[in-house]
């Protein structure tokens, strides 16, 4: 555990906070924090969200390429730069399908829901309560 505690210094938290600020600003600017805009996308009334996920994925793609190709270890933590590659199993499909039904009903996903709080959207607390209940139900079921 001691290997993890050194990451929790003030500089570490400052970098995380700065990243979160820019991330949340982007979610608000992009409109993803508004369920109506997400639902418009899913109903093909406004396909603008393609540019949100596309633009973000291009930036993160360049970032991961630069990190893993040209750089050594991260300055604040000493961690090695890696890509996000998770193992495939049928839960990836099942979870994706359940997520899709939820996203299609509500127009909200985790990051966008937090950002929605920031733009003063208090009804979004229903969605955040739902997400915590869902994550708890899934974890409780998995723990048995």
């Amino acid at each position, binding site marked *: 555990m001691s290997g993890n505690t050194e990451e929790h210094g003030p500089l*570490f938290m400052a970098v995380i*906070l700065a990243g979160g600020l820019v991330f949340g600003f982007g979610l608000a600017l992009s409109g993803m924090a508004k369920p109506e805009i997400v639902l418009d996308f899913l109903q093909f009334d406004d396909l603008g969200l393609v*540019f949100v996920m596309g633009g973000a994925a291009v930036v993160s793609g360049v970032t991961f390429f630069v990190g893993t190709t040209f750089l050594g270890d991260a300055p604040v933590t000493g961690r090695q730069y890696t890509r*996000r590659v998770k193992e495939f199993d049928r839960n990836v499909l099942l979870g994706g399908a359940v*997520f899709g039904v939820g996203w299609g009903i509500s127009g909200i996903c985790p990051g966008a829901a937090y950002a929605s709080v920031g733009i003063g959207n208090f009804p979004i607390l229903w969605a955040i309560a739902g997400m915590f209940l869902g994550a708890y139900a899934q974890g409780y079921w998995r723990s048995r």
Partner: protein
Amino acid sequence: MSALVPLAAVGDLFPRGIAQYALGGLFVGLGASIIYFGTGIIAGASTFLESTLSYVSDADRFNRRKYLASRDWRVVFTVGIVAGAAVYAVAFAGGAWTTDVQWWRLLGGGFLVGVGTRLGKGCTSGHGVCGIGSASPTSITNVATFMAVAIGTAQLVSALGVNP
């Protein structure tokens, strides 16, 4: 005249334009990049749900080492997301905004999002942004699945006359 038809059709697909969407996406990617370059961490938004539950639940699932080790910074990350969105609302949007989507859609849909993101190992930021950016086949499969299902679901809900 006929040359104008494709342009008009493109306009119909993007009634709000594309600038704000693309710029917003760049900022989302930039936020992830700041954390990555500084710390080597690939941050998704949905693990916050599980790691935060470790503060209040004794269930084994939430008290795994990786959640206990990351739960503090995930709270800071989420506080940052809320604050960053608030900066946008105050400085660029002229104040608060609230949704008209009905509470039961938010609660019920949110519940399924909570189950699905944990079961499927990620969400729109983890799989959709960071996973796609990593060219991960697992993430591309997950995103294709949730996109197709979400489009079908939203169209069905709309066809049933539920609005907003």
